[in-house]
Every structure is written in structure tokens, then in C-alpha cells.
């Protein structure tokens, strides 16, 4: 087992002393026997299903690979999978069940931020370990939560300056009118100001709205150089088709589309032409690691419509957890957290190297600038490697010093110590 672990570490960027590993490894001489149980609560039905079925598949692929290679600490991975139906109440019910009845060692759960917030009190009540693998609006500083998806500073600090440099300084934002959209819009606003650009408009749209004629007209009136579209959900995705039909023709930037909902595959061209997305993975990434990954995935799930970023994140999340348990030598939560706090939990993922930041328990990512062409072909004009989730740490969230259990935002940062 050690070989597998050192294999990861050898290729990790932050190779450090083995002292911490020896320490935690020694205390955990397999007090638990039998398989390691990993809970998976991801939507297989309901409104998010299109983007989240891949999360179940990703976890299954990772578990199968790890088991084929001998498991974690010699123990098999056993997945406990439920379908919460994109329904927050089901998340609550099933999270209780998975922690209390199924006694899982760790749980991977949730697409929407609402589902994460719904289960977080339960995770905290049982003091369990929770991996949230989705990209989100950022700011969760919670000792029990490891958030491995990309956060706004990773996606926008790369995207916004590039867009302004390439297309011009006048930016218009349309965003879903809820936490994710509002906080993302706040990031865009800040970055546009920092980069000397100008916000020429900002519009928030309730979830579920599917008709955009007025919005399109407002954008035309403001005539921006860059349109940031932070739209969420399948109803709001209708914007692109309607904008294309009205011949809007303004370069678009986003952190949500393409990588999650693979709109470039689902819509007829040229609806998404001129779209730029910063993502930590899409199926079209052509590195060797990614090509191999796609091959393994399609061998296991030949009918997969698209291998999206959430799918890869879920896959990588399992490996990151495996790495932490290998280092800790046990699945006991405090020991696993201690391993994470060494700052040395990394994995060479299909996207590139991913490491967990010990202060915020978020992950660093390789960020790809994905450009959608007239015929919806994908090109990747720029790649940023090792982009850190810096904001929470800078704002004062340091889980190695003190446990928190809250979600902070730029306008509502952690209280000063």
C-alpha cells in the first residue's frame, strides 16, 4: 500500500517531510476491519440530473480502479449510493440515514449550494467528514467539509482579465438571482474594477426564468465588449439560443456553462459561439492523462453523453480522500483531517495536479480557458496551472488553527480573531 501512496507523493508538487505521515500512520493500525464505506448522495433524477449523473459514475470509476489496485490500506471501497432527486429534503433525510444507519466513513454529496447547506448542519451534528466536489460560489469554512471544486477566485481571476484584455474593458453581467449568481457577480465587479474596466450593466434573473427578450434588448442598449453570463439551470440556459436568434454577437464569459451542462453539445450551433469558460476540466482536454481517463471512463460507461467537470471532480475527490486515508493510516476523521492539514494531499488528476489547501480545505486546480467556436468546436487558448483557492485563507479562515462551520462571502468575511 505504501507504494501507491509514495507514488502519488513523488509526483506531488508539495513533497515534504515524511514525519507527519509516519505519525498518523502509526496511530492507526487498522482499528477498522472490512471495507471502507463511502456515501454518495448525487442527483440521478430531478432538475439537476443532466449534470450530476456523471458524479455517480465518476465515484464508481474511481472506486473500481482503487479496488482493482488493492483498495485503500488494503481495504476495499464500498460505495453507498442514494438518489436525492434534486430535492433538498431528500438530502436531509438521506444524509441522516447514510451517517447514522449506514455508518459511512465519508460522504460525497450535493450539486447545488442549497443541498450542501441543507446537509451541513447534519454533518456537523454527527461530526462527520464531508466532501463537496462541486464548483460553487466559495466561502465555506467548515472543519468537517472538504470542498474540492473550483471557486470564483480561481475561475474569475483568470477569466475576467483575459476577456478584458482580448475584447475590451466594458463588461455586462447577467447572473442567476441567488447566492451563486450574486456572489459570482460580486467577484466579476471587483475584478473588472481592479483591471481598470467598466461595468456597463448588471442584471439578476430569478431561477427558472426561460424567456429573455427584454434582457437581450437591455444588453444591446448597453453595448458591452464582454458579456458575463452566470446563468444556472436548464431553464436559464435557454438564454443562449434566444440571444443567438436575436443575433446578439457579443463575446461571452462564464464560469458555469459548457463544463457542467455541456451546452455546446446540446444546443445547435451557433448558440454558444463566442463563449469563454474557465473550467478545471472538460472532456475535450487533450493531455495524455485526460485521454487515458476518457478511455477508462468510456470503457466502464460506454453510453455516457459527456464526461463533464462534475464527473471528473467526483472521481478526483475519491482519490484525494484515498490519499488522505493512506497518509492517515485510518479512516478516523481527526486523523484524516490531520493528514489534510499537512498540506501534502495531492492527486495527479486527469485535469493535472490537484492539492488540498490545509487552511480552507479547498483544492488547487489547473484552469483551462475553453473557447467555443462557430460550429461549437472547442479550443483551449490558455491554461493556468496550480491556481490556488486563495480568498478564504486571506480573509482569515484557517482551519489548521481554529474550527469554523460557516459560509463567508467577500461582503461578509470571517470575523477577525
Amino acid at each position: 500500500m505504501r507504494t501507491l501512496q509514495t507514488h502519488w507523493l513523488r509526483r506531488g508538487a508539495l513533497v515534504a517531510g515524511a514525519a507527519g505521515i509516519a505519525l498518523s500512520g502509526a496511530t492507526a493500525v487498522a482499528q477498522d476491519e472490512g471495507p471502507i464505506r463511502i456515501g454518495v448522495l448525487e442527483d440521478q433524477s430531478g432538475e439537476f440530473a443532466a449534470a450530476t449523473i456523471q458524479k455517480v459514475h465518476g465515484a464508481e470509476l474511481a472506486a473500481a480502479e482503487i479496488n482493482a489496485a488493492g483498495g485503500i490500506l488494503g481495504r476495499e471501497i464500498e460505495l453507498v449510493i442514494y438518489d436525492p432527486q434534486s430535492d433538498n429534503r431528500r438530502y436531509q433525510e438521506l444524509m441522516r440515514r447514510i451517517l447514522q444507519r449506514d455508518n459511512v466513513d465519508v460522504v460525497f454529496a450535493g450539486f447545488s449550494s442549497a443541498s450542501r447547506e441543507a446537509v451541513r448542519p447534519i454533518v456537523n451534528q454527527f461530526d462527520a467528514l464531508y466532501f463537496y466536489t462541486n464548483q460553487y460560489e466559495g466561502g465555506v469554512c467548515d472543519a468537517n467539509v472538504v470542498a474540492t471544486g473550483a471557486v470564483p477566485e480561481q475561475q474569475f481571476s483568470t477569466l475576467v482579465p483575459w476577456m478584458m484584455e482580448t475584447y475590451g474593458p466594458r463588461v455586462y453581467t447577467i447572473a442567476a438571482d441567488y447566492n451563486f449568481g450574486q456572489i459570482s457577480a460580486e467577484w466579476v465587479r471587483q475584478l473588472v474594477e481592479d483591471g481598470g474596466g467598466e461595468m456597463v450593466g448588471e442584471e439578476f434573473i430569478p431561477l427558472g426564468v426561460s424567456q429573455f427578450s427584454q434582457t437581450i434588448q437591455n444588453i444591446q442598449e448597453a453595448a458591452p465588449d464582454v458579456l458575463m453570463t452566470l446563468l444556472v439551470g436548464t431553464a436559464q440556459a435557454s438564454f443562449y439560443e434566444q440571444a443567438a436568434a436575436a443575433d446578439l454577437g457579443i463575446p461571452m464569459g462564464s464560469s458555469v456553462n459548457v463544463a457542467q451542462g455541456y451546452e455546446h453539445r446540446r444546443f445547435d450551433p451557433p448558440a454558444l459561439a463566442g463563449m469563454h469558460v474557465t473550467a478545471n476540466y472538460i472532456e475535450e482536454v487533450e493531455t495524455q492523462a485526460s485521454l487515458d481517463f476518457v478511455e477508462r471512463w468510456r470503457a466502464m460507461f460506454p453510453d455516457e453523453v459527456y464526461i463533464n467537470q462534475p464527473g471528473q471532480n467526483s472521481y478526483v475527490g475519491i482519490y484525494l480522500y484515498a490519499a488522505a486515508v493512506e497518509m492517515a493510516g485510518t479512516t478516523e476523521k481527526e486523523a484524516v483531517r490531520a493528514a489534510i492539514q499537512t498540506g501534502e494531499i495531492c492527486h495527479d488528476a486527469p485535469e493535472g495536479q490537484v492539492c488540498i489547501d490545509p487552511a480552507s480545505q479547498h483544492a488547487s486546480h489547473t484552469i483551462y480557458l475553453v473557447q467555443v467556436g462557430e460550429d461549437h468546436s472547442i479550443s483551449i487558448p490558455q491554461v493556468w496551472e496550480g491556481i490556488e483557492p486563495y480568498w478564504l485563507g486571506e480573509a482569515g479562515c484557517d482551519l489548521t488553527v481554529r474550527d469554523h462551520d460557516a459560509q463567508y462571502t467577500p461582503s461578509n468575511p470571517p470575523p477577525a480573531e
Partner: protein
Amino acid sequence: MLPSIFAFLFQFGDAFAFLVLAAAGLAIIFGMMGVINLAHGEFIMCGAYVTVAAARAGLPMPAAIACGALAAGIVGIVLERLVIQRLLHRPLDTIVATWGISLIATQGTLIVLGSTMPGIGTPFGSFSVGEFSYSVYRVLLMAIAVLLLIGLYLLFHKTRYGVLARATIQVPSMASALGVNTAVVHSLTFGIGAALAGLAGGLYAPTMTLVPTMGTAFIVEAFVTVVVGGGDVFLGTAPAAVVLAFVKALMINWYGQLFGLIGLLLAVIIVIRLLPRGLSGWILRGRE
């Protein structure tokens, strides 16, 4: 000045078309049969899916949309025969039954056809007025909405079926005494309602994301329009769509999408408070 007047008119017409097309099928089923059809969104989804499949198979757009409407209509007739017919005398139970149908349809589609379906692009391109450019297709939708209302008026007032249908609704015992096969009239009426939902789905299919839950994007607006309109399709739904489209276009224009939605819902509450039987109940007041 002129371009911005046109812009507002366009927004109004766009909202009007959406409300009319979304609500027409629901209005017929509610107004003529008293059935509250919570599966309305799924008939729309059915129409959209069939339309896109037909278009991808090479049929021209109008034929594909007709296929979508027809498919939804046939499904509607089958469901009427199997389920709705037995519930006509207890309309509130149709809420539960059609909600059950809706669950089965949405999740069944997800299981059988997958979580999403590739779309088809919007035809006919765009045109410009002043600084704004618009989709030609959306102007076409407005025209179709108006034509649909005229067509429905003719259907229910000038054809044998229409007269029989209205007789069946108003005096069921009399109609059956006169030898009208009321069961057939009900099936046809439900089928027409479902086909109109399918038509809405087909017409909006090129402009929207195709997912099994797409019907929910229509359902609130459709219900709101029908209820503000009251029982009658022409004297109710049409004026209701005018009023609500105006409120919505104005609120979105002034205060943004959030208030467009909230304004719409508040308009319903106010209209129903003032006119407890909807606009058509008010227009037809006293005629009993």
C-alpha cells in the same frame, strides 16, 4: 423614440405570445371540462421532444411541429380514456391524478431518453430596428398566437364539434338526451387541449433547452393566465394574456426580471380579489 416604442411593443407581444400559447391548451381543458391539468407541462415537453426528433429526422419545421402537436394530442386522448374520464365528476381529484401522470412522464422520459436532448437551432435569422436586433422567429410566434385565438374561436363557434362541445359543457344531460356522445366530445376536447400544449412545446422547442423538466418553465404562467381569464377561452384567456403580458413587460422593463415574475403573481391575486370568477366571469356576469 420609434425604436424604443417598437422595442416595448416587441416585449409586450413576446410575453403575450408566450402566455397565449402556454395557456391555450390548459384553458380549454379547464374551461370546457373543469379539469385542472397539472400534467400540462408534460404535454408541452412531449410536443417539444417529438418536434425536435421529427426535425432531426429531416422533416421541415412546420411538419415537425405538427407532428409534435399530434403526438401530444394522441397521448392526451389516450389518457382521457384511461384516467380523466373517470374523474370528470370530481374535478379536484384530477389535480392528484394529473400530478401523478406528470411525475411518471418526467421521470419516465429521463430514464428512457436520458437527461437531455440535443436541440435544433432557431430558424429565420434576425432583423434590426434602430440599435436593437430581434429574432424573426419570435415575431412569427406572436402571429401564430393571434391566429391560434382566431382559429379556436372558429372551431368552437362555427363547427359542429364546437357547438356540441359547448352544449355538452353547459347542459350535459340535455346534450346526451339529444344523442350527443358526450364521452367522445370529452375525449376530443381533452385531446385538443393536449395538442395545443404540444403545439406550444413544438413552437418553443427551437428556443429552449430540451430536458424532461422543461414543462415547468411554462406551467406557472399558464395557470396564472387561465385563472385570471376564468372559464372561457376567448373572453378569458385572450384578455388575460393581454393584461398580464402588459404588466409583465412593463415590470421587467422598469424593474427587471424579478419584478416581472412577482408582478405577474401579484396581478393574479389582485384580479381574482376584484373579479372572483376571472375576467370571463366578469364579462359574462349575469348570463346564466
